[in-house]
């Protein structure tokens, strides 16, 4: 950011426009102070506001009636809009309920199966360790 307050004001006018109400509060305060004491600053703001007035006065471009009629006709030809997946009537809601009820059962099964597997694995590890130790001891004894 420049140290020249006028350049800073110009940059702010470019970024946020001529209406200080649209500026961030801190920057708007500094700008107001500058505008009070500097005619050059006021000229810059007036220039920005004039551009905005010109832009807002651009003539409206109404949608031609024929195009509007075509939109409505095409929509009328199409079936009912897609409802969100979550709201496709009572059957969908029934299925959702059934699925929700099954989820805890499924989760329980998975947890159980996984811990059983872990127990089996631990058991297998322990047995193999015993067998290995025993055979190692036999080797030493030999």
């Amino acid at each position: 950011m420049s140290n020249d307050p006028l350049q800073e004001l110009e940059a702010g006018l470019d970024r946020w426009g001529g209406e200080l109400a649209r500026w961030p509060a801190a920057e708007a305060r500094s700008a107001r102070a500058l505008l009070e004491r500097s005619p050059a600053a006021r000229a810059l703001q007036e220039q920005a506001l004039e551009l905005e007035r010109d832009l807002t006065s651009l003539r409206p471009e109404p949608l031609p009636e024929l195009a509007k009629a075509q939109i409505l006709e095409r929509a009328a030809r199409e079936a009912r809009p897609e409802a969100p997946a979550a709201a496709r009537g009572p059957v969908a809601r029934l299925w959702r309920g059934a699925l929700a009820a099954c989820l805890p059962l499924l989760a329980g099964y998975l947890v159980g199966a996984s811990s059983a597997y872990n127990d089996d694995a631990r058991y297998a590890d322990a047995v193999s360790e015993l067998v290995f130790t025993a055979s190692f001891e036999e080797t030493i004894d030999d």
Partner: protein
Amino acid sequence: MAASAIADATADVHVLGRSRQVTSTATASGNDDQLLLAIAGGDHYAFTELVNRHGDAVHGYLLRLTGTRSDAEDLTQETFLRVWRKAGSYEPGRVRASTWLHRIAHNLCIDSFRRARPERSLDDIEALGSDEDLYRAQAARETVARLELALRELPDNQRAALLLCQVQGFSNAEAAEILGLKVRAVESLLARARRSLRKRLQSEEHPP
């Protein structure tokens, strides 16, 4: 309008898990959120009302973005048909309905730009092509005509940001939502656009 649609004056609306009955007579005076809820339930009256309310604004934005009447009309049509099909995905309260509509319109416009010229995007520095001189025909002395012309020569992304904030009346944050950018990026686009416009208009008023 289809006779069945007219007969179906009361629609059973299911949106985002909520179910409600919407009568078409009520939607005519309803706000945009209520209209979109009704449209999601297949209410043609609500759809007609939405097109009446926002058709001109969306068309004006697309016309100034594309620069051609036929493209603007086609894209406006596509925008509203997309709304008709996807109204159920609108989340009331997250953004204004007009912001959502403009976002759909803007994205369709980008897609059409890409189809027309795959290398083109809104990040291009290049201005819109001058295939159809909508505004050149008007006398360059008129301020509005000069402004329209100067607007057309801005890069696409700068023009889009300026149109949304200065012509369509959106806040910088809403424009950011529509353009899919951060607010600071929109502010930067606006700054460059205003600077370019000002310089261009000044140079026309005071030629070297």
